[in-house]
């Protein structure tokens, strides 16, 4: 019964979405307040029914209802509770339902928090999001219904959730990534609504900015969790592999980062408006491309769902319609936009423009590398793949000038800033980062390594320039407390995010330079050295869990004959699927990770295993967390808070609506 309720809720939600995409939109064109006011209640209705469908599917998992095909394929009676509740997103159908659920959640948030936004504008935003939801729901119902039953006989037990997914990372990574992805739909809808109404001004940028910041922050978190999960689960000690499905979120993230900066210029200076709208469309396109690549099965990837090409074509249809529609609207309406105020070659606008160009070029080159195998195959029929060396060769040289300008931009002035003042302000920072950047790695390791020097130097360059700017700003005030209070939350957010980049740059360069690993075959009682650490193999013993059994090997790690930690890597076999799986053992630390993956046991009792020492690898995710907090803190700035007076003003402007004040409306 419950699955039918879920199915029925989805159909109802689809109907409500159709209403949402038609009536408030007509209302906004005609200036009809009643029709426009439908947007909010309809959005609430969509959310309620999508949530109901989502809960029904979760309930089917929780109660082991294997008469539902999707549940039978992705769960098992022995599956631990926490995975039963989250196995909803263990496959294509359910994860797309999660995607729609996230979108309806964002829509509800827009309806709730945008009370100061004029009603006609809000009606357009929600109605455009409604149109997207129509596409997604149609796709779900037509090609990938998660509520399909197995008729006539339900299997006694399910096939189990893929053993590689039975992990904490699976609980947190997909929902976060989807939430970030879908957040860019909101930004897209704001941009489209602005194009439609012709109201593309600083006020629009101010409404849009907190949403862009939050979506960006959540996407950053999603990427960070994915990287962390891949690191400890996949067992090769890597934190980024340039996998074709990892790349679209990165492309979206790069475009989103450009967008967040470009919105700042649009809000503060009224410039780059057209470009900002373009970036909103592109970031949204990136998020759709991600789903398309994952679900069409066109590329080789660890993420790919076993899927049929029909789905790919359907998603391609949604992609072409929404992005094509967006670009068409852009082409028609953007020439009407007035250009912003002028600025000089040495100005904050110019530095931010450079930042944008670099980020967009980086996104484009990652996109090229990701799609090139597909294009090549279509043209020549030959199968190829593009390796990580391509991405590293392109990405790193683009990031270096970006990092350079990261210190320059925040210290410069809008409109015009003299080169000489920048040199005096940053000269000392440059000297210190140069000396310490070369000195620190050299003194500590006694080796010359270019990338670690560059990494430490650039990390210092960013963080010291931030600290010096912070100091200058505070010194202008009479006392420190007043100085600290006087700065806006968006300034603190920017500081945090930029320092996050510094931490990440240091982490990436140091872990890439100094990581060591080796694969060995060792018996109990034997030991081996890796770097300054000694790994001694102890006894093996059997372990078992609710749905698996396996073996565990004890490994004692010591340094200079002092015992550090015991690592317990496992090798498991899951009952339902019979698939073997390795569980690495990690000793995580602020300065280094020690980590072991276990292979097979040979006949003479020796175990094959790979040992890793990874210095500073945690800094990569620590830096990402700084960025996440930075994004959230700046979205909480009080100038985005919706004041009562603006709500009142909004009511007043509504009253004048019926008297035909809608000259700027309509295409």
């Amino acid at each position: 019964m419950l699955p039918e309720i879920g199915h029925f809720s989805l159909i109802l939600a689809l109907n409500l979405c159709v209403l949402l995409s038609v009536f408030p939109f007509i209302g906004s064109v005609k200036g009809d307040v009643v029709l426009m006011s439908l947007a909010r209640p309809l959005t609430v209705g969509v959310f309620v029914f999508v949530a109901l469908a989502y809960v029904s599917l979760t309930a089917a998992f929780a109660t082991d209802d294997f008469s539902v095909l999707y549940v039978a394929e992705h769960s098992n009676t022995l599956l631990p509770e926490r995975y039963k509740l989250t196995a909803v997103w263990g496959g294509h159908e359910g994860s797309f339902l999660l995607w729609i659920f996230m979108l309806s959640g964002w829509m509800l948030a827009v309806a709730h928090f945008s009370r100061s936004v004029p009603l006609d504008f809000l009606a357009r935003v929600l109605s455009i999001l409604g149109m997207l939801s129509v596409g997604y729901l149609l796709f779900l119902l037509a090609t990938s219904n998660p509520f399909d039953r197995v008729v006539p006989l339900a299997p006694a037990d399910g096939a189990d959730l893929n053993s590689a997914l039975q992990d904490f990372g699976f609980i947190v990574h997909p929902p976060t990534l989807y939430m970030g992805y879908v957040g860019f739909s909101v930004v897209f809808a704001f941009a489209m609504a602005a194009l439609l109404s012709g109201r593309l001004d600083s006020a629009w940028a101010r409404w849009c900015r907190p949403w862009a910041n939050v979506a960006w922050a959540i996407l950053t978190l999603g990427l960070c969790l994915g990287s962390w999960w891949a690191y400890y689960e996949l067992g090769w000690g890597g934190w980024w592999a340039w996998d074709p499905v990892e790349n679209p979120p990165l492309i979206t993230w790069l475009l989103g980062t450009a967008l967040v900066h470009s919105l700042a210029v649009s809000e503060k200076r009224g410039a780059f408006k057209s470009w900002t709208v373009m970036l909103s469309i592109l970031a949204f396109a990136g998020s759709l491309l991600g789903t398309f690549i994952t679900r069409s099965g066109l590329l080789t990837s660890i993420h790919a769902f076993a899927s049929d090409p029909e789905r790919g074509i359907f998603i391609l249809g949604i992609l072409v319609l929404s992005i094509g529609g967006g670009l068409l609207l852009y082409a028609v309406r953007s020439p009407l936009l007035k250009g912003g105020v002028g600025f000089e070659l040495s100005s904050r606008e110019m530095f931010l423009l450079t930042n944008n160009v670099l980020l967009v070029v980086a996104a484009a080159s990652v996109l090229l590398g990701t799609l090139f195998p597909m294009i090549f195959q279509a043209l020549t029929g030959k199968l190829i793949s593009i390796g990580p060396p391509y991405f590293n060769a392109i990405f790193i040289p683009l990031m270096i000038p970006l990092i350079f300008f990261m210190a320059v931009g925040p210290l410069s002035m809008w409109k015009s800033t003299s080169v000489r003042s920048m040199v005096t302000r940053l000269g000392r920072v440059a000297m210190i980062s140069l000396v310490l950047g070369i000195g620190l790695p050299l003194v500590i390791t006694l080796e010359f390594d270019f990338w670690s020097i560059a990494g430490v130097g650039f990390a210092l360059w960013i963080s010291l320039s931030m600290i010096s700017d912070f100091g200058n700003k505070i010194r202008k005030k009479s006392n420190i407390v007043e100085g600290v209070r006087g700065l806006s939350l968006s300034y603190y957010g920017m500081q945090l995010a930029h320092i996050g980049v510094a931490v990440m740059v240091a982490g990436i360069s140091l872990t890439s330079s100094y990581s060591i690993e080796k694969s060995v075959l060792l018996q109990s009682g034997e030991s081996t050295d890796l770097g300054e650490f000694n790994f001694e193999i102890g006894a093996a013993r059997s372990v078992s869990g609710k749905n698996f059994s396996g073996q565990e090997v004890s490994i004692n790690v010591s340094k200079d004959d002092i015992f550090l930690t015991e690592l317990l890597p496992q090798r498991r076999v899951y009952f339902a699927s019979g698939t073997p799986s390795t569980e690495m053992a990690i000793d995580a630390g602020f300065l280094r990770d020690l980590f072991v993956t276990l292979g097979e046991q040979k006949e003479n009792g020796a175990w094959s295993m790979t040992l890793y020492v990874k210095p500073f690898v945690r800094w990569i995710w620590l830096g990402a967390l700084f960025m996440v907090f930075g994004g959230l803190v700046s979205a909480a700035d009080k100038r985005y808070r919706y004041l009562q007076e603006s709500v009142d003003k909004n009511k007043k402007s509504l009253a004048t609506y019926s008297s035909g004040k809608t000259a700027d409306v309509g295409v």
Partner: protein
Amino acid sequence: MKPHRRNRLALILFISFGLSVTVGLTLFALSQNINMFFTPTQVAQGEVQPGQAFRIGGMVKEGSLVKNELDLAVRFTTTDFVSDVPIAYNEASGILPDLFREGQGIVAEGSVDAFGIFQATKVLAKHDENYMSPEVKAAMDAAKLLNADESDLVNEELTK
């Protein structure tokens, strides 16, 4: 020229210069990093020169997997059910993935040596047991076309 025109010109020149450098570098990097993919049949027919780096994909042939007991060397045969190619791998460059098994689709990177043995530097198996990578699928499809008479047999093998 008026100052703002001069600024705009400088800006356009600056951006187009940057773009052309980037496009040039990107295409160069791309051309340097293309990994070709070949099926076991193509390799058996000698389409690949010894020493040339490429990717091969197919099934791990049933009964072909031999793991040394005293070191980490591994040997197996990959097949598209038309031709077989022997593969040598050493787990010292990384333990084989969890899903590496006989009858499972794999993709290996490396090159063929003078004795016709594919020396793999990396072996990939996919994490989803229902999922077959496009490369392996393409190899199977190509083999099926070649071998239409025996297609029943191939299907039987595949459904095992």
